[in-house]
């Protein structure tokens, strides 16, 4: 079946031969992959769509069917997305999610890279704070112990990136500094934090930190987790930024020095723009990592998107439909991560084109 046609006049045949069957080894690989796809995809389509149950009054219909039980997801999606937030107030986290995504989307478009962008963020985050906590303007107060689901994941990521990135730049600069004390502190912090798993940092923040605080002083659980996430991400991002700094040619430092620019002006105006541009792919990689790492906060009792899935699975009525719930959560994660990845590719391409160099 892998034999190439004798007459190569048909462009479609030509394409198939050139791309799929260029050599015996490639032909074997092509056939093998087609076979595996044939084995995997039709059953999945049957399960996920054709035999799936989309509407049913209870779980009994699902148990009788051979396909996926999407009823479970439609039944529980609000808990998965919003956690233990009061049910009738779900429009508030929904609006907060919308605001947060809008802020991110606007910040990513170069036409919004203006001086007022930080002000827009401040206003947006203030509005999100009011929505989520309430307590004023007729909104009932909701303590942040009850926040959960997607909004928690997005907030932890947003403040995680917002806090970790500037810290990482400072750490990377300190690590390359000629001042031994500063350099030592940066190296010590980075190696210490990178040397332990995020889980242990979260545990320390949640269990050990209160032991060291004076009696009567307590830091909110969410804030503690957020700080742990920021410190953890900063250590990794610092190494990424350092990698970018190392690639900026020495001549750039010398040209800036020769103009008499001070250290900070040289760094901000000449070095960092080039270093960060080089570091875009690994930076976005780390941001995506941070987005997914937020799911670890479940071990200290915060209900992010993945934790809420775990909780709905404990409902005895719906036990056994974990695959559907996890697929739903995965889909949500995937949409955000894929968007980040696509954006970074476009940004790289845009910057490369603007400066007249070929995109790599």
């Amino acid at each position, binding site marked *: 079946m892998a034999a190439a046609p004798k007459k190569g006049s048909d462009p479609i045949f030509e394409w198939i031969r050139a791309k799929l069957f260029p050599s015996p080894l490639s032909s074997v690989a092509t056939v093998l992959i087609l076979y595996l796809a044939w084995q995997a995809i039709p059953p999945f389509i049957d399960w996920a769509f054709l035999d799936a149950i989309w509407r049913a009054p209870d779980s009994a219909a699902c148990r009788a069917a051979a396909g996926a039980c999407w009823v479970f997801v439609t039944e529980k999606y609000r808990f998965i997305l919003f956690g233990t937030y009061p049910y009738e107030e779900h429009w508030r986290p929904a609006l907060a999610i919308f605001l947060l995504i809008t802020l991110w989307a606007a910040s990513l478009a170069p036409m919004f890279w203006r001086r007022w962008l930080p002000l827009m963020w401040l206003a947006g985050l203030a509005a999100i704070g009011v929505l989520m906590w309430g307590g004023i303007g007729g909104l009932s107060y909701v303590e942040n112990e009850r926040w959960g689901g997607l909004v928690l994941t997005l907030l932890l990521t947003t403040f995680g990136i917002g806090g970790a990135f500037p810290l990482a730049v400072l750490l990377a600069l300190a690590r390359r500094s000629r001042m031994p004390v500063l350099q030592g502190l940066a190296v010590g912090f980075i190696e210490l934090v990178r040397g332990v798993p995020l889980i242990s940092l979260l545990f320390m923040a949640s269990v050990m930190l209160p032991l060291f605080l004076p009696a009567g002083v307590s830091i909110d659980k969410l804030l503690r987790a957020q700080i742990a996430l920021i410190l953890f991400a900063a250590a990794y991002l610092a190494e990424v930024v350092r990698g970018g700094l190392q690639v900026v*040619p020495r*001549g*750039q430092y*010398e*040209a*800036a*020095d*020769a*103009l*008499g*620019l*001070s250290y900070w*002006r040289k760094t901000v*105006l*000449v070095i960092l*723009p*080039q270093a960060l*541009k080089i570091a875009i792919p690994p930076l976005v990689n780390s941001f995506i990592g941070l987005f997914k790492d937020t799911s670890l906060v479940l071990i200290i009792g915060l209900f992010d998107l993945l934790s809420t899935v775990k909780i709905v699975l404990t409902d005895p009525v719906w036990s056994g439909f974990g695959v559907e719930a996890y697929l739903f959560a995965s889909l949500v994660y995937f949409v955000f991560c894929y968007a980040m990845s696509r954006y970074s590719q476009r940004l790289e391409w845009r910057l490369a084109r*603007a*400066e*007249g*160099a070929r995109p790599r």
Partner: protein
Amino acid sequence: MMQDAAMVEMEKVSKWFGAFRALKDVDLVVRRGEKYVVCGPSGSGKSTLIRLINRLETHDAGRVRVNGVDLDDDLRKVDAVRREVGMVFQSFNLFPHLTVLENLTLGPVWARNMPLHEANALAMQLLERVRIPEQAAKYPARLSGGQQQRVAIARALCMKPQLMLFDEPTSALDPEMIREVLDVMVELAHEGMTMIVVTHEMGFARTVADRIVFMDSGEIVESAPPGQFFSSPGTERARIFLSRVLGH
């Protein structure tokens, strides 16, 4: 101004790179308005010598005095000297993320606190002078080597320097582009700029230099006006060097 005052004074300057002694007890005085060409075989310390003047390298012994300031670890002194001393590099070192115009205005605006509109006007004037005003909005990567080096010269001039250092400005250029860069440098010399140029372009040295400094193994072997240097070099080492540079 003080026409005879010294712009650069070096006294018994030495520089080591590890165990390698790059400069040995160098003495040099360049007065305002003078044009010096520094030549010599590669590794002779030419680049190190001029990089000491704006402290891209630090000296290990002796004294370096530029524009009346003794250079040491005091960063304020260093920055003060750097603002008055322009430098052009062999590899241009333009800022790739900035347009040509932004490359020129960065220094005046951020190191001299010049208002942006003033810096822009000055930058356009200088781009006219190096004959590429139409490239102002482009990024450096779009320009030819010769154009990039002329932008680099304009960038240094935009700081209104009192002294210009050139570190092999034409060595990285294709032969057909060397002329356009040298023309700009000759014009600059005729306008009275104090210049120290490390170069192998002996034609340029002959027409422009007040003095030629010949270096070998970290020492100034010979320092003479071009007529004397080219017709009757005083040392065997200079004779061999000249026959190599001029002989091909």
